[in-house]
C-alpha cells in the first residue's frame, strides 16, 4: 500500500479508483469472514470515500497508519481518559477540513477508507466489532475517523452545522464536510438542518449524499419517496450538484467549488451493486448482507478470490 502523498493534486486518478476497489475488496473480505456486513454501502460509496480521503479533504497527514486503542469509557465528569476517533484525521487546525460520517452503518466503509488512505493500520480491522475495542460495527465518537455521535439519523448534519457556524465565528478557513445516505433525507431533522444552514449562510459546508436508492426495508421509492431531491434541496436554498457517484474526477472537481453564500450538496447517484454483480441476486434486500447458507457464502468467496487477482 502506498502512503498518502502530502500533495493531493499529484495523486493520479487511477490511484483513487484503486483505493475504491480496495474499499470494496476489504469490506467484502470482512463480510465473508464475519458472515455479515454492510456490503452494498461499500459498493455504492467506495469512489466517494476514496475521492474524499485521497483528493478532496484537506487533512493533516499522519506520520504512520494509526492502531486503534482500547475503549476508554464514555465521556463524563469522571472520565478524563475518554478518547476521540478524530486523531485519524490528523490534528485540528483552523485551515484543515473536518469530516463527519452521518450514517454510521457505513462505519466499515469508513474504516477501510482510512486504511486505503494510510491513516488506519490494516490490522486495526481485526478489532472490528470486538468486545472492548473501538472499531465498532456502528461507529461512535471514539471510533477511527469519528468525532461526533451520528448514528441516530438526522443528527449528524445538524451537529456539523453547529460546528460550521462555530468555525465561521472563529474565522477558520477549513470546511465542514459531511457524508450522508439518501434514506436519512426522509427525516424531519435533516430538513430542519438544511433550512438552518441556508438561513445562516453556512457556505463552509459541503455535503456528499450517496443516493444508492435502497434502504433497510428495500427500494427507497417504495419506502418513502425523496425525489426530486435536487429540486427539494434547491428550494430550501442550497447549492446543488448531481453527478455519477462513481466518477472520481467529477466528485473531486465539485469538492473544489468556491463558496457562494449557500451550503453545497453533491448528490451522488450510485449503484449499490457496483463492480459486484453477485449482489444483484439480493435486490431489493441490500441493506445488510448475511449469507443464507454456506453455499451462498462460498459463491461470495469465489467472487472475492477473482477480485483479489484483479487487484494485483
Amino acid at each position, binding site marked *: 500500500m502506498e502512503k498518502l502523498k502530502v500533495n493531493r493534486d499529484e495523486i493520479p486518478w487511477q490511484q483513487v479508483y484503486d483505493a475504491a476497489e480496495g474499499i470494496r475488496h476489504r469490506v467484502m473480505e470482512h463480510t465473508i469472514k464475519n458472515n455479515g456486513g454492510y456490503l452494498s454501502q461499500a459498493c455504492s460509496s467506495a469512489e466517494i470515500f476514496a475521492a474524499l480521503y485521497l483528493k478532496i479533504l484537506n487533512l493533516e497527514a499522519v506520520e504512520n497508519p494509526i492502531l486503534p486503542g482500547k475503549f476508554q469509557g464514555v465521556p463524563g465528569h469522571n472520565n478524563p481518559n475518554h478518547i476521540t476517533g478524530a486523531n485519524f484525521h490528523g490534528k485540528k487546525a483552523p485551515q484543515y477540513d473536518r469530516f463527519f460520517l452521518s450514517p454510521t452503518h457505513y462505519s466499515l466503509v469508513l474504516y477501510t477508507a482510512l486504511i486505503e488512505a494510510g491513516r488506519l493500520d490494516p490490522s486495526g480491522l481485526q478489532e472490528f466489532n470486538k468486545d472492548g475495542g473501538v472499531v465498532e460495527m456502528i461507529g461512535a*465518537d471514539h471510533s477511527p475517523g469519528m468525532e*461526533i*455521535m451520528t448514528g441516530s439519523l438526522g443528527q449528524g448534519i*445538524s*451537529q456539523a452545522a*453547529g460546528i*460550521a457556524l*462555530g468555525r465561521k465565528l472563529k474565522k477558520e478557513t477549513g470546511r465542514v464536510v459531511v457524508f450522508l445516505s439518501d434514506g436519512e433525507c426522509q427525516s424531519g431533522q435533516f430538513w430542519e438542518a438544511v*433550512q438552518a444552514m441556508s438561513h445562516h449562510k453556512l457556505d463552509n459546508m459541503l455535503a456528499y449524499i450517496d443516493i444508492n436508492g435502497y434502504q433497510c426495508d428495500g427500494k427507497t421509492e417504495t419506502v418513502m419517496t425523496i425525489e426530486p431531491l435536487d429540486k427539494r434541496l434547491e428550494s430550501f436554498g442550497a447549492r446543488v450538484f448531481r453527478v455519477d457517484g462513481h466518477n472520481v474526477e467529477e466528485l473531486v472537481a465539485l469538492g473544489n467549488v468556491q463558496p457562494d453564500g449557500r451550503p453545497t450538496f453533491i448528490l451522488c447517484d450510485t449503484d449499490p451493486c457496483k463492480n459486484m454483480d453477485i449482489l444483484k441476486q439480493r435486490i431489493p434486500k441490500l441493506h445488510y448482507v448475511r449469507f443464507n447458507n454456506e453455499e451462498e457464502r462460498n459463491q461470495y468467496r469465489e467472487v472475492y478470490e477473482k477480485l483479489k487477482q484483479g487487484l494485483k
Partner: protein
Amino acid sequence: MEILTKVHAKNLVKWAEDKPEVLVLSADLTGSTEVDSFRDTYPDRFYSMGIAEQNMMSFAGGLAREGFKPFIHTFAVFIYRRAYDQIAMSIAYPNLPVTMFGFLPGIMTPGGATHQAIEDISIMRSLPNMTILECGDATDVESVLDVANSVNGPVYIRMLRGEIPRLFPATEAMELGKSRLITEGSDLVLLTSGICTEEALRATEVLKARGLSIHHRHITTLKPFNDGAVIDAIEKTKYGVITMENHSVIGGLGTIVAEKIAEKGIGKKLVKIGIQDTFVHGASKQFLMKEYSLDAMTLISEIEKLVGLELNIKEDDLTEPYVVEVHSKAKVEAL
C-alpha cells in the same frame, strides 16, 4: 414581598457582557423567554433557529464542540419532549456545556397540556451527565447563570419569567448542590422547590403559631442530589418528610428524596405533594394549584395527617398570595 419584573431579561444582558462565548439560541419564542433584550444588545451572539427544536439541540452540540456556550431558550416541553434523542446523543452523551432554559414548568401556564412541563425532571434526570436546576425566586433567576456556567457539561434549568417574588436576599446566590435553609425545626422536614416554596411560605407563620417546628429547605439542585444537610435533617426529624413540587410525583423531587431515604436506610415517612400522575389543563396558576392540590392548604392537611393533629387552620389564616394578572405587562403573551 418585593416583586420584580423581567428579571432574566435584564440580568442576562448584564451577565453576558464579558462572556463572548455565550450564544443565545431561540426557537421563535424570543420575547416569551425574555431574550429579546439580549438579541437587541448582542445581535451577533443571537441565533434564531425557527420552530425546529431537534436541529436546534444538535446544532447547539456542534457549537459547544467549537468552544462556545449555547444558551437554549424555549418552553420546557419543547426541549425535553420534542428533542429528547437530540439532547441525549448530541449534548448529554458528549457531556457538552449546553445550557437549556426551560420556561413554563408545571402549572405555570394556562396554555394547557401541550405547554405544561409536568414530567421534565423525571425525564431529564435519567440522562447521564445532566445537571438539573430549578428557580423559585428572583435571586435564583439572577444567580442560576453563574451556577450553570460553573458546570462543565449540560444543564437543564426550570426557569421563571414575568413577575417574580424575591424570597431570598439578592446577596445570597444559589449554590450548586446546596439547598437553602428557610427555617430550623425538629417535628418534620419540608422540602420545597420552584414556585412551591413561595406557596409553602404562606403557611409558615400560622404553623409556627400552632406550635409546629418545621425544618424547611428550598431545593434548587435536583441533580446531582447530594446535599448532606438534607439527609442530616431527615435522619433527625421526628415525624417524617414532606416534599412539595410543581411536577409529577413520579420522577421529581419526591422520588429523588424517596431514593435517598431508601439508600440511607432511614425509616421515615415521606409525603409527596405534587401533580398526582395526571395531565393538567389550561387555567390560571392559582386555580390549578388548588385543583391539583399544590397549594398551602394541601400542605397543612398533609402536615395534620403526618403529625396526627388537627390544626384548625383556614384559608384566611394564610398569608395572601401574590397573584400575577393573566395579561401582566411583564410577559409578551397571556400564555
